[in-house]
């Protein structure tokens, strides 16, 4: 049985425009279920916990990154599968799972390809896909980078980003890797992701990527990808780890799965907890249920 957690405020109320069509499509695909709406922060966590107690083994989040993160924090059993119908202002996690829109998301749910991803702890918080800090995070605070922005809006964001990049001073960064390797570098931007999102057959592992300040020539494509919230993997340094401790001078904010959250210094580690996601990625390792 499917339990749908709907955030009616996500994506500026986008769900309200498509709700009937969505329910019809889910019925057609034979994956209808119980629908419940959140009414405030942390509601999704409580609702998911209750749904699992009631015996639901599939939870589908209809919302954005914030709602998904709340829902994931309510998963108390490892046999529960989590699906996403992206409706938020930021749908970074859905995109990393290959889910691009609500109609395609319905097909993905019906196909039910499952893959487990290790939960990553960042201080007291947990996340699944990507943590960033440095220029990218700073830019997100300065510029509204919501999806669905018009081309004119995007160009405006781009020029704001261009100006911000010219004045951005790299951070002084120290990273302790797996308690035995210390790294020091000036840092324009940094990202940490679970390698499994890009290499579905691989084990869960943190991949830390460091970015140098892009040259004027590289800046155009870099900014465009940052504003589109694409995952960027071609940094100047990259290494794998199970645990990293990051310190920066000055301390700086972090973005976790598309949400601004927490600050340096921070310890980040891969936990033993796994979350089973219904994913689009057409890889033979995914088992259909």
């Amino acid at each position, binding site marked *: 049985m499917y339990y749908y957690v709907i955030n009616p405020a996500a994506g500026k109320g986008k769900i309200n425009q498509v709700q009937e069509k969505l329910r019809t499509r889910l019925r057609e695909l034979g994956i209808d279920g119980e629908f419940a709406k959140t009414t405030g922060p942390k509601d999704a966590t409580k609702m998911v916990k209750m749904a699992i107690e009631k015996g639901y083994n599939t939870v589908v989040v209809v919302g954005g990154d914030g709602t998904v993160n709340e829902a994931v924090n309510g998963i108390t059993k490892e046999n529960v599968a989590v699906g996403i119908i992206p409706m938020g202002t930021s749908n970074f996690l859905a995109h990393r799972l290959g889910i691009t829109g609500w109609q395609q998301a319905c097909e993905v749910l019906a196909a039910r390809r499952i893959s487990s991803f290790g939960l990553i702890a960042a201080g007291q918080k947990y996340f699944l896909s990507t943590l960033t800090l440095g220029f990218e995070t700073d830019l997100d605070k300065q510029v509204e980078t919501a999806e669905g922005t018009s081309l004119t809006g995007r160009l405006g964001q781009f020029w704001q980003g261009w100006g911000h990049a010219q004045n951005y001073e790299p951070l002084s960064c120290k990273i302790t890797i797996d308690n035995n390797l210390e790294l020091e570098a000036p840092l324009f931007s940094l990202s940490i992701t679970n390698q499994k999102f890009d290499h579905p057959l691989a084990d869960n592992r943190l991949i830390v990527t460091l970015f140098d300040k892009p040259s004027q020539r590289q800046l155009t494509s870099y900014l465009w990808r940052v504003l589109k919230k694409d995952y960027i993997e071609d*940094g100047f340094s990259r290494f794998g780890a199970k645990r990293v401790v990051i310190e920066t001078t000055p301390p700086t904010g972090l973005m976790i799965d598309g949400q601004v959250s927490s600050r340096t210094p921070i310890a980040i580690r891969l936990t033993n907890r796994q979350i089973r996601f219904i994913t689009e990625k057409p890889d033979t390792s995914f088992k259909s249920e």
Partner: protein
Amino acid sequence: MAKTDVFNVSSIDTVIGSGVKLKGNVSSDGDIAIDGALVGNIKSGGHVTIGINGRIAGTIHATSATIAGYVDGNVTAGDSVSIGESGQVHGDIDTGRLEIAMGATFIGASKMKPVVAAEVAERTEVSG
């Protein structure tokens, strides 16, 4: 470049760029490329590349190694070691095949395994 083939998916390459300082030991099942400074040892199940800006104070253990920077320590590579024209190795090298470019610096002893006749024939065939 990350490896995506099904046989070696867990060995994402380690790349350390110039301007980065490392202290400790670096190990990976995959390839390692260092263009920064490392005080510590390198252990790789694949190929190790020390870039032109790379400065290593420690030993290197790998299948093969290409050195264009500075290494102060012993290098052990079962397959091959290549020192480029900008490369400097201050330490002993233990490897199957050794290539030293004109202008390279190698201060130390080299230890190589004898090449068996079949390998010589194979190499002659390939190059011929």
